[in-house]
Every structure is written in structure tokens, then in C-alpha cells.
């Protein structure tokens, strides 16, 4: 089966400064891949390239089998509609209530209201949010609820790929654990494909089938966490605190 996402010898920059070189990895259907690395290592930059918001300096990024660079802006927009994104901090639109935030991707697709209402109810339910929260404004929500609403917005249009940027950042351990458990349930029941950027070792361990570790401008390692734990590279051992050293 063709991978949903593939990076082939990709080099990316940030404001003209090279950030990552020789990045090659793929995300297969039904797989959750964790993209990990120290702060400033270029993880979010890679995500922006995957969304087609930036062009790589070198190499090729394929999304659903199509090379992103050669697509027209309209074709890229069509591809993006097949993706659900959970941005860091939720990025909910502060002037819209929970219902309107979640409904936004469906309204953009031109679906009639009668179809939007049940789909929003489903997405809220999948994200573990009671329907009473629908009329509330983002400013009235706790951090954990903002993340759940952002997840509902990411799920509502039945994405073939979910991109999660630090979904547990800023959440307390209990709320973060509840979110990880929810994602585990969704992966089991919906078989979602996801690429998750995270520093949270518990999230990476419990959710991801494979981990791609970047740092020092390169891809350091990729594979299952159990396999990475066997490697002697001090950067890997330091990141995953395998020697009891401080991690990221």
C-alpha cells in the first residue's frame, strides 16, 4: 500500500537558515508516527512544509502519493481538505463558539446546515466533549477542553491524515493522560493515520507505532521506541532519558 506521507531526501530552511537535511521517512495508512526532537530542531517547520505552506530547498514531499511541489495551489487546497490539523495551543478562532469552530471545515466544503449539525455532534462526541459545550466560547474553556475542541475540528471532516502539533503541550499530566487515552481509543476504533509532533515521552510511547527523531540538522533515527532504546547513540539515549539523563 502506498504511504500517506513520504519525505524523500528533503532539506528545509527557516528564514534562509538551513534547519534539516536528508530527511527521509514515510507514514503508512493506519499508522501513528511520532516526530520528536529537541526544541528548535525543525519539527514544526517540517509540518509547515507538509501542509504546503513552504517549499523545501531540496528533495520531494509526497502527500497521498502526489508530489506537493508540482501541484497547483488549487490542487494543494484540495489535498489539505483531506487532512485534519490540531495546531499547538488549539488555534481555535476566538470569535466563534465551539460549535462554529468545529463546523468550519464542513461549511467550507459547502455542506448544508442539516448535515453539519449531526457531524459536529459526532466530532464532539469522538473528542469526548458533552454537547452542552457547543455554545461556549473558546475563552470559557480550560486548556484540556481547547485541545479536545481542536481535535474535534480536526476530525469533523473525516480526514485521511491527522497532523498533531504538540497536542499535550501545556496540559497537566492528568488531562494529558486523558487525551492520550482518547487518541488510543480513536486509533483503535477509526484506524486513523497520524503524524504527531511531541516532546511528551509518554504520548510518544503510548500512541506512536514508530518514532522519527530529528536533531543537529539531520534525521538521527527512526523506528519503534523499543528498537531505538537498544541503540548506543548518546543523542537518542539522552532524548529518551535512557541513561537517567535529563531529556528534552
Amino acid at each position, binding site marked *: 500500500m502506498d504511504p500517506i506521507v513520504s519525505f524523500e531526501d528533503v532539506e528545509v530552511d527557516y528564514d534562509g537558515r538551513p534547519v534539516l537535511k536528508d530527511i527521509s521517512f514515510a507514514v503508512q495508512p493506519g499508522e501513528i508516527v511520532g516526530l520528536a526532537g529537541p526544541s528548535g530542531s525543525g519539527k514544526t517547520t517540517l509540518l509547515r512544509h507538509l501542509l504546503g505552506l513552504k517549499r523545501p530547498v531540496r528533495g520531494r514531499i509526497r502527500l497521498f502519493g502526489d508530489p506537493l511541489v508540482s501541484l497547483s495551489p488549487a490542487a494543494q487546497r484540495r489535498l489539505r481538505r483531506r487532512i485534519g490539523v490540531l495546531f499547538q495551543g488549539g488555534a481555535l478562532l476566538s470569535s466563534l*463558539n465551539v460549535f462554529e469552530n468545529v463546523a468550519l471545515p464542513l461549511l467550507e466544503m459547502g455542506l448544508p446546515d442539516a448535515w453539519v449539525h449531526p457531524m459536529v455532534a459526532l466530532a464532539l462526541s469522538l473528542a469526548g466533549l458533552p454537547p452542552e459545550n457547543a455554545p461556549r466560547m473558546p475563552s470559557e474553556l480550560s486548556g484540556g477542553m481547547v485541545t479536545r475542541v481542536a481535535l474535534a475540528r480536526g476530525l469533523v471532516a*473525516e480526514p485521511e491524515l491527522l497532523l498533531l502539533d504538540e497536542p499535550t503541550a501545556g496540559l497537566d499530566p492528568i488531562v494529558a493522560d486523558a487525551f492520550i487515552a482518547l487518541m488510543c481509543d480513536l486509533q483503535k476504533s477509526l484506524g486513523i493515520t497520524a503524524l504527531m509532533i511531541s516532546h511528551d515521552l509518554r504520548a510518544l510511547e503510548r500512541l506512536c507505532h514508530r518514532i522519527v527523531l530529528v536533531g543537529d540538522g539531520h534525521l538521527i533515527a527512526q523506528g519503534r521506541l523499543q528498537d531505538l532504546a537498544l541503540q548506543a547513540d548518546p543523542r537518542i539515549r539522552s532524548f529518551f532519558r535512557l541513561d537517567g539523563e535529563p531529556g528534552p
Partner: protein
Amino acid sequence: MRPPSLQRVDSPGGSPRIVLSGSWTIRGLQNPRRLLDLEKEIHLLHARDPKCPWDLSGATLDHFGALLLRRGWLASPPIHLQLTPPQASLFARWARIPPCSPQKTKDGLETWLRPARWISQALFDSLALIGLIALLFLTFLRQLGASLAKPHRIPFLEISQNLYQMGLKALGIIAIVGSLIGIVISYLAALQLQGFALRGFLVFIIGISIVRELGPTLAAVLVAGRSGSAITAELGVMRIRGEIDAYRAMGIDPLYRLVFPRIVALLILLPLLVGWSDFFGIVTGLGAAALTLHTSFLSLVRQMPRLVPSFNLWFGIIKGGFFGLLIGLVACRLGWDVPPDAASLGRETTRSVVLSITLVIALDALAAVLFRRTGF
């Protein structure tokens, strides 16, 4: 992606069945017209023969496709339904979803009372805003008194920054607008008075209209639009980003650090900007009059102090101080209370400008009525 389709298949020797194929997914069904057609087709097929078995196992289905089928079947799904296990879980999930509404539920009485509630809310909000502005004014007076008692605590740096931003950078636009208004008044009046040999009256009109009314009002309107909006937006963003709470957490009074310097700066600036605007208005007004009447510019300037009593100049400048105080109070109050969302920030900034200008003109009208017999 194959388009969604359904057909009634008559199997040889057996009973007919309805077979679905293609992509019954949100992306395969997002054309609203096609969606409604399919819903109608499902409904008709099911209503015609409710006992006919349906075979979905060959179709690609997601939650949206399952929703379409549920809507088409209305409340009664087919008795014989052939599904794959993932498809069965989609229907099971839909059966558990509670409805949700974008609005809070309202009863009938509340709907009827809504207009009355809007009016009372608007009145209450207006009164509350007046009260809050008055409260801010009292706080400002208290801080001014405390600052004068301990001058070393006055936030001179913040005040000077605001003087630079709101004053020095506004000199150009105020000079241009003041000059243009002087020219307009001069030409309009000169055209009317030509042939009446009323040169002194023209000097009086230019002088009195600019120093008493137009200079202060125009400077205040420009400052309200330029600086009042900026103050509301700055304080609003600080409120949204939690900077005001950070001041409080550090034991610093945010009103004294953020609001007091801005109001003081406007209080100092507006009279100076009024003088600046008056100067350009009169110079260009008299210059234009000299050109129109073919007379000496200096002779017109010399007539000015005799025809326009100095009270009018001071009246305009002092009015400017009140306008500055009013703009500062309104802009700071609205910025201080911005609700934490992007739309509110824009709305409150617009409201700040509109309210400041309205109150400036109202105060100007009140002053005109109260001092109607003075200065002539």
C-alpha cells in the same frame, strides 16, 4: 475514487436486494445536490419495499455515508442489512450520538422578551460604561494627587514615550489638516463677503472659527482616530496576552504604569496640538484671504488680536485639555475591559473612536452653549 451508486439487483431464483458500491464518504458525497438526490433515492427504494435486504459490504463507507443512509431510511433501517464489522461500528456510533445545538436552548417566553432584553441591556451597558469611565477618572485623580505628592514616582519614561508616539508623530497630519481647513474657510467666507468691503469681518470669521471651534475639534478628532484607537488596541492586546495580570503578579499597579501615563500624555498634548493646529489654520487662512482680497498678509495678521479677543484662543486650548482627558479615559476604559477574543478587540477599538468623537462633539456643543456670551 468511484462515485457512490446504489441499484436494485434481482438475483436469479432469489429475492431482490439493494447493493451499494463506490465511495460513500464525505469527499465522495460533498456535492449538495447529489447528496439530496441520493437521500431521496434511498428513501424511495426503502419505502417501496421495506423488507428488501441492503448490501453495503462492497461500498466504502465513513460516518458521513452512514449518516446519509440513516437519513434516507428515516427511523427504520432495513431488517436485513449486510455490513462489514467496521461499517457496523459506524452505525453503532451514530446511534449513540446526542444532538447538539450552536445556541443555548431558549424557551418561548425568552424569545418574546428578547427585544425588551436588548433595549434594557443596551441601556444598562451605557450606564455601566459611564460609571466605569467616571470610576477611572476618580482613580486617575487619586493617582495624579499621589504622583504630585511623590514626584519621584511619576512614570516619566512612559509619559515621554507616549508624548512622542501620540504627539510628535501626529504633528505632520495635524498641520496639514489645520492648513486645509484654514484655506477652505477663508475661500468660502471671502466669496460671500467679496464686494462688501468687510475685510475685518473676514479676519474675525477665520480667527474665531479656527481658534474657538475648528482647531480644538479637529485636533481632538484626529487624536481620537489616531491615538485613541491605538490605546484601546494596545491595552486590549495586553489584556488578552495576560500582560496586565503579569503586572499585578509582580506587585505593580498596571493602571499606574499603563493607563496613567497615557491619559497624562493626552492631557498635555491636546492643548499643544490645538495651538499647533490653530497656527497653521490661521496662517493659511489669512494667506488665502490676502490672495483673494489682493491685500497684505501682514495687515490681516495685525488686525487679528484686535478683532478676535485672546479669550477665544485660551478657551480653545483649555477645551483641548478636556478633550484629551475624555479621549484618554474612553480609550483606556474600553481597552482595559476588552473580552479575550480577536473580534472584540476590533469592535472595542472602533467603539473607542466613535464614542470619543461623539463625546468630544457633545462636550464642544455644551461648551458653546455655556460660553455663548463670552469672548466676542
